[in-house]
């Protein structure tokens, strides 16, 4: 069936409908990861957006349920050049078409995704509509697109009740280290790079603004017990449990919209509990500490951006997904200093808070999809909790 993607600037792409047959009005963004489409689909940070994959062949290895980053896909629409008709992977549970239908996600294939990407790059992120209605009324659609705003998305994706996931007790439960032990077992376990249970016994509170499962997994695999709290949780409720550390998760939307959460984070900032924040969490902490954020022209979404750790001078390839960024120019250096910077465009990628056990990053050390290079930051967080406890 024919499908159309209509952009705010009046551009229309014609392709074929995939997934659910329904209209979707959304913010259109592109992601340059060459693998990991399922992780993108199930990343709650995409709530309110439709994602265009720049890699043209999508669905090649089907859907491996155990790789999902949340219980369901959160994005509004999926835009690809070619959807594979043959999923081929030993773990594949279904093909991507059935997955999209099952979760009622509409999409479009067979369009020039590179041309779309170039438009988004040149004109900035735009709203768009995916529709199967051949007789759409363009002025009407454009009016709707101009109206559209991504709002209330954190409320949509956060968990409704707190819950606790115990840390693993023995390293072997993690599965193999870097594949070496798999050679002997033949088990279908996911690989892991974790070599030490340095977080054993630590209790971490994770504030869920749309967290990806691998944040919990990364802590759990290091031995931490993780309690996940809904985004609307009061600071007092978290602090009364006396966690060893607090994590602020990634999530969708404009950070400035989360006014209540920012208030609560201010309280967390004042308490002397070590805090590690990722992506939206990083932006919320910055806002709580009095800094500002702004929307980027078209953001960073992919698995290939180099970020420099300003403390060591080392450069790491990172997984990225953000459309907003912390404004370092108006940052009070007495409160926080840049800890990471994007090598390409010099934008801020992380902050270190002065006199506090707090560090935050814009990128995704939990990867999934993308490089695992900055996974060491979870270890840094654990060391921070260690030091704080000793003090």
């Amino acid at each position, binding site marked *: 069936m024919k499908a159309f993607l209509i952009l705010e600037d009046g551009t229309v792409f014609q392709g074929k409908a995939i997934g659910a047959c329904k209209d979707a009005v959304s913010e259109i963004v592109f992601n340059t990861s060459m693998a990991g489409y399922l992780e993108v689909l199930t990343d709650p940070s995409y709530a309110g957006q439709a994602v265009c994959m720049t890699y043209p062949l999508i669905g090649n290895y089907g859907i*491996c349920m155990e790789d999902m980053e949340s219980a369901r896909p959160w994005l509004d629409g999926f835009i690809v050049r070619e959807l594979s008709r043959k999923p081929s992977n030993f773990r594949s549970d279904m093909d991507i078409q059935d997955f999209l239908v099952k979760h009622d996600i509409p999409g479009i294939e067979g369009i020039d995704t590179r041309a779309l*990407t170039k438009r988004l790059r040149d004109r900035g992120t735009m709203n768009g509509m995916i529709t199967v209605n051949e007789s759409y009324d363009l002025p009407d659609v454009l009016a709707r697109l101009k109206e559209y705003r991504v709002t209330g998305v954190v409320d949509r994706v956060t968990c409704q009740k707190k819950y606790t996931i115990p840390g693993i007790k023995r390293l072997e439960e993690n599965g193999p280290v870097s594949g070496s032990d798999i050679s002997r077992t033949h088990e279908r376990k996911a690989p892991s790079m974790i070599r030490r249970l340095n977080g054993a016994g630590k209790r971490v509170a994770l504030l869920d603004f749309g967290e990806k499962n691998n944040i919990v997994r990364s802590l759990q695999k290091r031995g931490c017990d993780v309690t996940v709290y809904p985004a609307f949780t009061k600071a007092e409720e978290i602090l009364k449990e006396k966690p060893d550390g607090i994590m602020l998760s990634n999530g969708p939307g404009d950070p400035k919209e989360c006014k209540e959460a920012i208030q609560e984070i201010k309280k967390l900032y004042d308490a002397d509990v070590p805090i590690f924040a990722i992506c939206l969490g990083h932006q919320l902490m910055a806002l709580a500490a009095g800094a500002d954020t702004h929307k980027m022209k078209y953001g960073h979404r992919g698995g290939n951006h*180099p970020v420099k750790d300003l403390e060591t001078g080392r450069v790491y390839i990172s997984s990225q997904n953000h459309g907003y960024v912390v404004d370092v120019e108006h940052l009070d250096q007495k409160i926080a200093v840049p800890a990471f910077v994007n090598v390409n465009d010099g934008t801020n990628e992380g902050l270190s808070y002065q006199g506090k056990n707090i560090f935050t990053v814009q990128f995704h050390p939990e990867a999934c999809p993308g490089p695992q290079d900055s996974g060491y930051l979870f270890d840094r967080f654990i060391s921070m909790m260690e030091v704080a406890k000793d003090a």
Partner: protein
Amino acid sequence: MPKNPDVKKVLVIGSGPIVIGQAAEFDYAGTQACRSLREEGVEVVLINSNPATIMTDGDIADRVYIEPLTVEVLEQLIEKEKPDSILPNMGGQAGLNLGMELEESGFLASHHVKLLGTTAETIRKAEDRQAFKDTMEAIGEPCAPSKVVESIEEGIAFTNTIGYPVVLRPAYTLGGSGGGIAHNQMQLEEILENGLRLSRVGQVLVERCIAGWKEIEYEVMRDSAGNVITVCNMENLDPVGVHTGDSIVVAPSQTLGDKEYQMLRTAALNIISALDITGGCNVQFALHPESFEYCVIEVNPRVSRSSALASKATGYPIAKVAAKIALGYTLDEITNAVTKKTFASFEPALDYCVVKIPRLPFDKFLTARRTLTTQMKATGEVMSICTNFEGALMKAIRSLEQHTESLRSYDFTAMTQEELLERLKTVDDLRIYIIAEALRKGASQDAIHDVTKIDLWFIDKIAILTQMEHRLETEPLTEELLKEAKRMEFPDCVIAQLSGRTEAQIKQMRREQDIKAAFKMVDTCAAEFASATPYYYSCFDGENEAIITSSEVKKKVLVLGSGPIRIGQGVEFDYCSVHATWAFAKAGYETIIVNNNPETVSTDFDIADKLYFEPLTPEDVENIVDLEKPDGAVVQFGGQTAIKLTKSLMEMGVPILGTKAEDVDAAEDRELFDKILEDTKIPRAAGGTVYTAEEAKEVANRLGYPVLVRPSYVLGGQGMQIAISDQEIEEFMAVINRYAQEHPILIDKYLMGKELEVDAVCDGNDILIPGIMEHVERTGVHSGDSISVYPAHTIGDQVKETIVEYSGRLAKALHVKGLINIQFIVMNDEVYVIEVNPRSSRTVPYISKVTGIPIVELAVGVILGKTIRELGYEPGLQKDAGYMAIKMPVFSFEKIRGAEISLGPEMKSTGECLGIAADFNEALYKAFIGAGIDLPKHKQVIITVKDADKGEAIGIGRRFEKLGYTIYATRSTAAALREAGINARKVNKIQQESPTVMDLILGHRIDLVIDTPTQGRDKSRDGFLIRRTAIETGITCLTSLDTAKALLTSLEAKEKQRELTLIDISKINR
């Protein structure tokens, strides 16, 4: 970290002659590295024995030595040039081994020379099997159970503990030379014996066979600060078991999920870090198709064929960045040359699919086994880029220039489904065509997967293509269907065949329906950032983004490249294409290169103003022409590939710059050419043109045997043979007529004499001849396989004058504007013309370098309307350069099981090296050393010649005896030698009782085998076996007595023990 100020003068080691497993990719890498170093103000001293390369040009390095790549020569060079550093990781395994040997011997330390880019410890950890395994174990990266063995007994004992089959890999060899898979003890013994001998350190790795697993590669970069990135990952369509150089490879990987992708990526980064590599590195993994189990197959701590492929596939210049890293820069300090906005620490993101297909030489070696194993056999490769896999595969197939247009180009229709599935058990280069036929015959994808282990995703893609074939055959050709077929890159000619129309009709339909190719940019970042690099590929499902400049501002020239490297059309033509491009740019033209070879300099994105990475077929070139509307095209620099496009280009209305198409035709067309010879009063061997075997026999009998049989319009003597009987004529004609011949086949009287050759530039009036080259071997051996001597030293002035005179007459009669190559025979002081090629030839780089006359530039000058005089040269034969320069052919016979090695009219060499010196003997000695023939070792030689050669063999025998050689000879040769008073020991023929000639060869104490096969094609199984065994056990085997005499001359000169003089050829200037 900024640049290290201590590095001021760097010695770069090249990879030497082109052989299978070490080809043009190192010219690409070396050239890029040299340019990258000089950008930083570093003085570059270059050594490479290969004169055909671009890197050995005076404008690439400050000092250029085309000298043998041996430890002794390098030591001498270091003493002479006193570099402070040496960069060994650009010259393939050859360069790395040399760097390692210099370091280990303490020579570098004692001369205060640093190894850049790598350390000896790193090389050892990556290359020494046991050290590598220990390192991998220490960081928890799995290797297949394996053991390094140094004897056959040890190998058998270990294999008995892990079970058959096992993979065998000799340490320190190239392209998996001497390796293989053993399924039983007999095979194990055979491969082990060979492998132990070929290994520089006498070691072979015996390893659990993981054949059938997915083969995945990562190209990784690391700087001195420890920053690591992956440039690209690649997946082999052919599972483990086929050398990656012989596999169809796709980038990026297609069947790995993020979990597998990142697991292997992290492992690759851990490995490069553990090996402490600074620069580029290639890591190969085997991944179990049904679990996360994987193992590391191999690591190459240097630039490689794969890194060249990755560079072209992504736009990330690995060699350039590696050179900068060697100087001390970190990845975040090096700008990405494509985007100019991002940095070298940014991992490329692809938004297209890349397919590489190897170019295998089985069309040259009809007797060779086509089976693909862990021993690489490909001479070159093609790459293609498209927005979908089907399209990329189709484009790559037609780039191969092996009469392949689609998956139907090899006909297996006569076979049943069962037979096809059975046939698939043999892994060879025809596998994808057989899979396609099996699918057409209704075989299930699972059944094909069970036999081949090829991932179902790829098999399904082939099925999509065969389903499209079926639709085109059976359905009405609607706009929709045509669009879809073009999206998958079905060429018009194939659509025409399938739909029962003509190609012109399809083209017309496309015009009417506006179905045309669009060009997309390779930009390293999937369009995330705006890039300025004009590196394009075509697709049929998108908007065009190629920026078309107006030719009013700058005239535009289309330079057609030479496609994949194969025997007969090697890196020489890339040299010519690149130099022509530079010369046009200098003259103010906008240059546009079209080529499909990822290994070459011409497909580097900063050589021309625009690069179109496309197949070189008329339709593909027309897509570019329609868009760019060039002011002209040059075809004379890109070998036969480009020449073949002449007619089509003219039909498209593109003016051919330089020599006109009809004049090119006149040189190839027998009747037209005879007319010219008659007019210019130049003699040639009598002959005739034929189409059928019957006609051929008639002509042959009229001329009298022996005769030369050859198709017209070919390079490298493809299909050329000397026939001595009607029976042979029939056989050769059958081979040639395997493909329908557009042009007649030529039958000439075979004249045996001295062969001479000139490359010249003609401005339509005057001719400039940089020098005359003389072949050591008599006529009958292809010029590309002959030792070539400049200046010709055994001919008199009279003959020289005649050659100059004839060359001038021919060039003028053919209205040559640009380059011309002419081959002559001199017999009894009479000069005959053999053939004339009004285009560049394989000797152009060699003659340019040794004479210091840049003939490609001059050719472009005359093409653009200048005369030779206006270009500052006096016409005629130029005076000698003051050096003897000898070009020595280099072969890769040991890599091609079953290939006939005897030399004949069909070219067989894969590369060449140069010997240059003030006197002939030293030059000859250098040339032999450069080709790896370094004698004496054991001072034992086997001589077995055909009856006609017995007389000449006596002189040869006598000279070997005088050098202290023990001579072995087969019965009749021995008798002839003994009769002449030479103490030759008689050995038995193979089927006689031991010890036979075979036992002698396998005894590993023989320096040399001289075996001249009976005239024409040798039918004797004996001779063939002797030659093959000699080659496979690493013994030099000569099949021409002229070559043997030259070798003797060189050995005799060596006896006088003189130090070599090293010559900086960048200083040869006039």
